[in-house]
């Protein structure tokens, strides 16, 4: 009898924690929306939502690649530098036409990803070290290619940055499409399934004959490509290439979005819906605090609290 009486609340608590871990990020977004609707003037306007969405798009796109890397039990610190490299390449190749510039920028990101992936898969360098090397090298290369800020004056780029379809800005549409694509890849393709197996148990995946190296290289190539796309969208929106500051600390924002979204750092799971919500949560949090005239340091503290909460929930889960 006592066992039963003691057992019940504990099980309930576990259950609640598990639900919180899975759906906490959505709850967070809902709460923030509610708070803003009630207390923030002019929050419920199309213009405001557009602004928020446009701001979150690059972070979200980078976070999608980061989710793949983290799902494979790795991490990609080079994403911010890839954005910088992408913006430099656009400025350099814009003369050949806007499409050439965009393609070259994405190829550049994929090349960095291939270097990351090769270091990880073939040489066995730890992901955090390999991508740290490319983070430094990538930013350096971006600055060599384009030493200082340069305006990007191109009508196509301008429309990519500020145009809209049915009232939805292009960057937001692109981010949404990429999120759907990555979710589809994770759920439905052999690559996605193999990626999860490798992230969960590398020795088992190897003994099951999975192409471990190929999958790992592809993961980082995908992450590089996505970061490059984020870079070119940011360039289009700013109408300028700024390789010194574009993408600074982006890797940390992306990791935050992924972790807050409930993807465990230990690999083996990728939650795309959660990652999207995680990026939105951080964006809303920042916006809320700014709109209420709180200093930027408050934003950082609030972010830190959210991260700690997310990690706490994840810890409870892994202990079971």
């Amino acid at each position, binding site marked *: 009898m006592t066992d039963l009486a003691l057992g019940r609340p504990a099980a309930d608590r576990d259950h609640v924690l598990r639900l919180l871990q899975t759906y906490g990020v959505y709850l967070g977004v809902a709460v923030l929306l509610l708070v803003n609707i009630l207390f923030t003037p002019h929050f419920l306007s199309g213009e405001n939502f557009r602004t928020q969405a446009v701001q979150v798009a690059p972070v979200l796109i980078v976070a999608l690649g980061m989710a793949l890397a983290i799902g494979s039990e790795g991490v990609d610190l080079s994403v911010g530098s890839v954005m910088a490299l992408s913006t430099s390449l656009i400025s350099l190749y814009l003369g050949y036409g806007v499409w050439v510039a965009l393609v070259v920028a994405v190829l550049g990101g994929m090349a960095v990803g291939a270097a990351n992936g090769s270091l990880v898969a073939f040489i066995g360098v730890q992901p955090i070290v390999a991508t740290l090397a490319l983070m430094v090298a990538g930013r350096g290369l971006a600055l060599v290619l384009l030493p200082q800020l340069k305006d990007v004056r191109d009508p196509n780029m301008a429309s990519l940055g500020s145009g809209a379809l049915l009232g939805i800005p292009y960057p937001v549409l692109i981010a949404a499409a990429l999120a759907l694509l990555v979710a589809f890849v994770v759920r439905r393709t052999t*690559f996605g399934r193999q990626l999860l197996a490798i992230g969960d*148990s590398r020795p088992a995946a190897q003994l099951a004959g999975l192409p471990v190296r190929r999958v790992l290289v592809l993961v980082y190539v995908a992450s590089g490509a996505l970061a490059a796309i984020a870079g070119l969208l940011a360039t289009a929106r700013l109408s300028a290439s700024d390789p010194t500051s574009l993408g600074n600390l982006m890797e940390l924002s992306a990791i935050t979005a992924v972790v807050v979204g409930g993807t465990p750092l230990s690999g083996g799971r990728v939650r795309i819906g959660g990652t999207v919500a995680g990026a939105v949560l951080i964006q809303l949090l920042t916006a809320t605090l700014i709109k209420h005239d709180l200093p930027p340091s408050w934003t950082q503290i609030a972010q830190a609290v959210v991260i700690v909460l997310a990690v706490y929930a994840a810890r409870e889960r892994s202990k079971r």
Partner: protein
Amino acid sequence: MLSVTGLTKSFPGVRALDAVDFTARAGEVHALIGENGAGKSTLIKVLTGVYRPDAGEVAYAERPARFATPLEAQDAGISTIYQEVNLVPLMSVARNLLLGREPRNRLGLIDFRRMHREADEALRDLGVRVDVRRPLRELGVGAQQMVALARAVSVNARVVIMDEPTSSLEPREVRTLFGVIRMLRERGIAVIYVSHRLDELYAVCDAVTVLRDGKVVHTGPLADLDRLRLVALMLGREIGEVADEGVTKFTGEHHAESEPVLRAERLSVRHRLSGVSLDIRPGEVVGLGGLLGSGRSETAKAIAGALPPDSGRVTVAGTSVRTGSTPAAIRAGISLLPEDRKAEGVVPGLSVRENIALAALPRLSRLGLVDDSRVDAIVDTFMRRLRIKASGPHQKVGELSGGNQQKVLLARWLAMNPKVLLLDEPTRGIDVGAKAEVQKLIDELAQDGLGVLLISSDMEELVEGSDRVVVLKDGAVVEELTGSAVTPDALLSAIATTGGPAGAEAGAAGGPAAPQHLRETS
């Protein structure tokens, strides 16, 4: 010198040590042996202060002792040399030797000249000559082992514990090591020696303690014990006492065809395998016998491409298979059920469905897109055929019982339509009911024409399940038992054989396998 009485240590679900009495005397080399899970490591960890005993006394130099940490034990004079050398690879040999007690000059800085001289002397004492200023990692594994040993001895050790010290040594280095051990014995140091190599035990040890299932089954002078008896004690099987039939679910007889489906020729892996050859015919279960560390798992892994061999060939149905590549082996039809099911077999976080489909995914996909209906069909078929008990195909494999995890792994491989199944301890750690089911399944698979390689520490399982048994010792084939010669007694005596392999042709039917020379270890 160091003794324990009534030592008991339990972990959740297991009693690792059960009222163990053990005494290591000064000037004696004491062998500590036992199969996997017998309690050797636990005993060593209690002696060195890593674990605290639940009950029982530890006495050191005639006085009760209780070491709270490994450091305390070390300071008291108990040194341990582990299988894997635990030194700092980038530091110089001398710094490693004197780490934490470097000689200092008047300014309190390290006196390098004195340090190098002292280190050199310590190594010379052991008959090792190396430049002590060079980083440790430039030395061979054997020399590194010697540095570890010199370090252990130079801290004024009175008890030295060696955990499989020879597993990565060359024969010459083993001889040096034995010289050092004898020297330690002369100095009145108590040596506790853990090894599975019988030749080594008889070459260097005075006394022996055999552990089995956490209990001491024998202790006494080694000279009084012949090899056969020692092996019987370790495995817990008395000669002539083994139940003959009906303990397992095996029927025993299969109709094997004449042409082998798998042929492994002279597989060699440095320090692990020397020239192992074997072949498996369709519909045949070939057992792989031998003690722990004899190279059974390594043989299976080398065949399955998970352990790249230095030399040797693997052919499946006459076609050569690229060695050292798991995907190549799997394409050729070789499937391995690894020994460590949890770490190397199942992917615990994924569902039953994903685990079953894992290896076959490329076959169940079109243009990289997984065909879910085909996956469902296969998963459904195998879950029913193997009677996998799960709440559904979407339950996580990590939540299943050991037996069901094993069935999931079997299903993963059967979905690939393999020609050869390599089963490494397929029934270890699973409950009795599931064990019988898995055994019956192995039987059925062989009857369906699969070639099966069965590795098992369970003697009844091996004898009753196999049509033939290839016996390994120190990484080489020593004997092959066929047909009616497959009996527990024959297996025991084969395992206990002295010296090198009798005839290493090992069933390479008519193959030109030259006899391989076993490394001399004494």
